[in-house]
């Protein structure tokens, strides 16, 4: 069933490689028409999103770009370069992949140093929303990442990514909201595929949902599906596990 309130929590990000440009455009247009919370694109799609925004901007939906997403494996120079690019393109926000290798090594000074440079490059004009990789890292590391982000004046986090194994659980949100919910807005990402789970997450403090299933979970239509036999991408019946 269509749920306007849920759509306003949804974040779409049409840049997975099996899309074609017509579907990318359709996702952005429909996102704005339905007033999703944000539309996030890859660095090579900024002109497209700005073009769509001119025609379909609604005063609510925000535009964003990924920087070092999702592994954060890019150099600091590259992340700063992309942040400045997002600023030049007048985007509202960037989703940032932190230095996962440093975090996994508990070299938090390195993580902080890089994020500080990114925040400076954003210049207060572009909201910085870093990831946490909650499906991979123990709470001990997530906790330290949150501490760094809050120290740097960051006010929102993205919980994970949907590109790989591991799904966000309600317990992740419960922990995150309990420990950092008064300082950090929670944007859930990481294979949330059912409305029931999403609603439980909202009850636990989640505010927004970065997901490929925003149409289905909002009651608007079907998800994008890739047919491995025909190599076609189209809107179709849901195929993945819930």
């Amino acid at each position, binding site marked *: 069933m269509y749920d306007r309130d849920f759509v306003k929590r949804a974040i779409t990000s049409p840049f997975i*490689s099996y899309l074609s440009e017509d579907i990318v455009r359709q996702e952005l247009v429909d996102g704005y028409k339905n007033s999703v919370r944000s539309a996030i694109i890859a660095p090579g799609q900024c002109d497209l999103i700005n073009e769509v925004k001119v025609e379909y901007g609604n005063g609510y939906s925000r535009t964003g770009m990924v920087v070092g997403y999702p592994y954060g*494996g890019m*150099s600091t120079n590259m992340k700063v370069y992309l942040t400045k690019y997002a600023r030049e393109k007048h985007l509202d926000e960037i989703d940032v992949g932190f230095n996962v290798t440093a975090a996994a090594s508990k070299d938090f000074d390195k993580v902080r140093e890089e994020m500080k440079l990114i925040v400076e490059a954003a210049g207060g004009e572009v909201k910085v929303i870093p990831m946490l990789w909650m499906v991979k*890292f123990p709470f001990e590391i997530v906790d330290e990442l949150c501490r760094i982000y809050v120290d740097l004046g960051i006010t929102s986090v993205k919980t994970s990514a949907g590109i790989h194994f591991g799904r966000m659980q309600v317990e992740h949100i419960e922990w995150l909201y309990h420990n950092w919910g008064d300082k950090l807005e929670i944007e859930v990402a990481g294979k949330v595929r059912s409305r029931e789970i999403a609603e439980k997450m909202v009850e636990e403090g989640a505010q927004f949902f970065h997901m490929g299933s925003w149409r289905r979970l909002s009651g608007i239509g079907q998800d994008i599906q890739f047919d491995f036999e025909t190599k076609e991408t189209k809107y179709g019946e849901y195929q993945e596990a819930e």
Partner: protein
Amino acid sequence: MTAKELGGIMGGRILESYYDYAHVSNLVYEALDLGFECIQVFPNMLPKVREVLNGRSLEICAVISYPHGIFLPEQKAFEIGDAIEAGATQVEFVVHNINVRSGNWELVRDEFRTCRKAAGGHVLKAILECEWLTDEMIETVCGLAAEEGIDRVCTSIGVYTRPDENKNDMLIGVEPEDVRKVKAAVRGKVKVVAQGNIDSVSKCRELLEAGADYISSEYAADILRNWE
């Protein structure tokens, strides 16, 4: 083929979110010990690789615009230049597959040309994602790679999943058929790297028999140690 010969065409890679500095060090030591052709790492791992190498020689490949590849050519060029300055001796970029799937061939050509220029004389590899591409797309993109001087074409990034019959997520891996298609499409003008979840000796053999010129794997050391 001996294990030593296999090592000469083997790339070891650690491109995930859970690897720490010890994994980076270990990859370097394994590569030196077992004679990998190269290692493939994130750009932010380059300083650690150079520190561990401490002057010893090893081909270091940095992955560019990884994993989704939807960047402008000039953005890829910036990252390539930055990685080379940081010590990469090879670079491997993910092709803008939305352009490939949309038939924007002049944009793909421009991307290849720009990356070639940015890489200079360093080995330049382009990562396709065969799992998303039709035979015709593979044929055309490989033809462009050959025309624009790409040194090696890689079959896959290997990070995506697809549901199995029980709707469980399963990693998508490179198949011998992917190698055969790419091998035929490059017509001997570009080397072919099989990569994407190659986790066993038997899989490695299948891919070599299909025509792979190079193998790239997270399990490179295990495969070499178990090679007979």
